[in-house]
């Protein structure tokens, strides 16, 4: 929807050829999935479980500041691993090919207030199908933010930096709310819908269990460390929320990422779908540890092209995908985390105000890039 279409130089044939080349990359990975990949995910799961258990054990003595610090740090990392590299990716079906009922998208439940079943629908079906299509992709501004110049400005948008920050702090609840499509469903007529009520009940149950674990049982088991453990689990959840919110903002928000109109995806071909994923996602550059901690969503472009390939393979896929970007003269948006987070936040602030009459420097940069 940006003024200049950065893909305008591609012919329909080229786009389909690009699609075929991407299909070939995908087929290659699928043909070579094997023991090493299986060992990888089992290892991550095992490390995460041991880390979580150890951290929670240490937090039983959280009244001592060093124990609080180590326990909270460990639990935060464990929760991040669980949501990102493990939960998100298993629920995508990335590991279904192993046929292990314990590591399967249909049986997995994650450490998150949104039940896996509902998240899979809103994330896998809606977000991944309608990536960056305004009005169809809930991830785009989560229905509370203005994300593109062409969207009409409303005084409510003045507050969007604040909404975004609050959403970041309580991100898992934000996700549960829009997996429920709460905004839409809270209208009187829809509230009574039995299907919605059943889903809301499931979310309530999940929240209850999660809260009971983190804020009641674990603190109670800590005895005299009750309050400090409560503070620790709250902090760990907060850190996890801020982290995953940042990573996810970096995936679709930084400058240079395109958004699309509803009507632009009517009759979309396979090649065009691929192209939209390429233009609608941004990567985060960094070390191997960084990739694991982001659940390999640092390879957001590759993840959006191939959502169900094992995350451990995105790094090697990225080399080939990047070569295709160069071949077809497309911009591969990527940068270190602080830069991308800053870029995304700047956009949130900029779009909280009505459009300026003159072009901003950012728009000019896009013109040059195009």
């Amino acid at each position, binding site marked *: 929807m940006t003024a200049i279409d950065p893909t305008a130089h591609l012919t329909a044939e080229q786009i389909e050829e690009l699609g075929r080349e991407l299909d070939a990359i995908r087929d290659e990975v699928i043909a070579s*999935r094997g023991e090493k990949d299986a060992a990888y995910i089992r290892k991550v799961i095992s490390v995460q*479980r041991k880390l979580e*258990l150890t951290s929670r054990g240490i937090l039983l003595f959280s009244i001592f500041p060093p124990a609080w610090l180590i326990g909270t740090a460990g639990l935060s990392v464990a929760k991040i691993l669980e949501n990102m590299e493990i939960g998100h990716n298993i629920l995508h079906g990335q590991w279904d090919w192993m*046929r*292990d009922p314990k590591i*399967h998208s249909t049986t997995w439940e994650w450490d998150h207030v949104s039940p896996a079943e509902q998240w899979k629908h809103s994330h896998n079906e809606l977000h991944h199908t309608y990536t960056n299509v305004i009005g169809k992709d809930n991830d785009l501004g989560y229905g509370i933010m203005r994300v593109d110049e062409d969207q009409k400005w409303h005084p409510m948008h003045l507050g969007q930096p604040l909404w975004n920050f609050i959403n970041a702090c309580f991100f898992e609840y934000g996700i549960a709310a829009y997996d429920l499509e709460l905004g839409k469903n809270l209208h009187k007529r829809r509230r009574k819908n039995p299907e919605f009520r059943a889903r809301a009940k499931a979310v309530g149950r999940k929240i209850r*269990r999660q809260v009971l674990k983190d804020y009641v049982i*674990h603190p109670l088991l800590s005895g005299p460390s009750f309050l400090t453990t409560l503070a620790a689990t709250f902090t760990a959840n907060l850190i996890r929320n801020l982290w995953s919110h940042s990573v996810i903002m970096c995936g679709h928000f930084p400058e240079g990422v395109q958004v699309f109109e509803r009507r632009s995806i009517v009759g979309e071909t396979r090649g065009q779908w691929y192209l939209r994923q390429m233009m609608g996602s941004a990567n985060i550059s960094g070390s191997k540890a960084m990739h694991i901690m982001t659940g390999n969503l640092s390879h957001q472009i590759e993840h959006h092209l191939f959502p169900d390939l094992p995350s451990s393979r995105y790094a090697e896929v990225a080399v080939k995908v990047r070569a295709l970007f160069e071949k077809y003269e497309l911009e591969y948006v990527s940068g270190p985390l602080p830069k991308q987070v800053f870029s995304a936040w700047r956009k949130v602030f900029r779009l909280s105000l009505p459009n300026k009459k003159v072009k901003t420097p950012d728009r000019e940069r896009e013109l040059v890039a195009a």
Partner: protein
Amino acid sequence: MTSTALRSRAWKLLELVTTPLLPSDYLDLVSPLRAGADLRGRIEAVHPETPDAATIVIRPGRGWRGHVAGQYVRIGVDVDGVRLWRAYSVTSPTSRSDGRITITVKAIPDGKVSNHLVRRVKPGTVIQLDQACGEFVLPAAKPAKVLYLTAGSGITPAMGMLRDTRFADVVMVHSAPRPEDVIFRNDLHDLVADKALRLVELHTDTHGMLDVARLEELVPDWAERETWACGPAGLLDAAEAHWAEHGIAAKLHTERFRPTVVVAGDGGEVTFGKTGKTVAADGATPLLSVGEEAGVLMPSGCRMGICFGCVTPLKSGAVRDLRTGEITEAEDGVLVQTCVSAAAGPCELER
């Protein structure tokens, strides 16, 4: 409060701590064979038997309930990262004192699991196990005269019985391509030396396939013997016909490793409702394989239509029984055996 009730309370509390996981998810990391865990086993050794067969020594988990000689056990092995289930006869006697069991596997051409087990699996590997099952067992009352009619890897359940129970008068007629292909050849000859077995060893590469009619000359009193037969479908079909012809079908017990496919139809699109996957399937491929290939979690069992471990609700459409050609149409509560059913037009399974 009783100790069981107390323990169940403590377990419930533990579940509140481990949610959304279960306490067992953590315990499995350190003790996969413990009591109360899903049944697993650890491979302790692999002993080659012939150039393409090996005996696998398995230490079963604490939940193992033992077996009856002649039964088979289903094992789930990760081959190239993919969990595959197969059934193998238990070849160790029930009296084995160290609690281990053995299965004996023959590598078949293109057999993913059999080749993995015979040639690549490493001691220490943990595998999934099911309780032993199968009706190919000795009766409670010892028959006076016994005949084992076996070929190739069909010897394995018979060996399980031979090692388990001694009979006063037992004959084995066993076929294999060459002497070096005879699994358990040394054990068999030891039994012969002990006068615990009369063995008729046939080498099909030099003597050709056994014609069942020749039993008359090989084992003149064959018709008086309670017979257990296991081997390729050709042998078993011939044996069943032969025994039926002599009106003594009740004396013959057979074990097949694979179902006999008689009818294949046109196939169709198969939808797995819960997983939300739709794939095209031909009319000869069992729905179990179709689902597994698509990454759907399919329960499975013997893979030959016997154990009903794979039954799945059929929500719509129709399926064909590959053994009989019979068509089953969807209705409320209709369950189909996915291992011997193929798509007969578009259909939906609840998986």
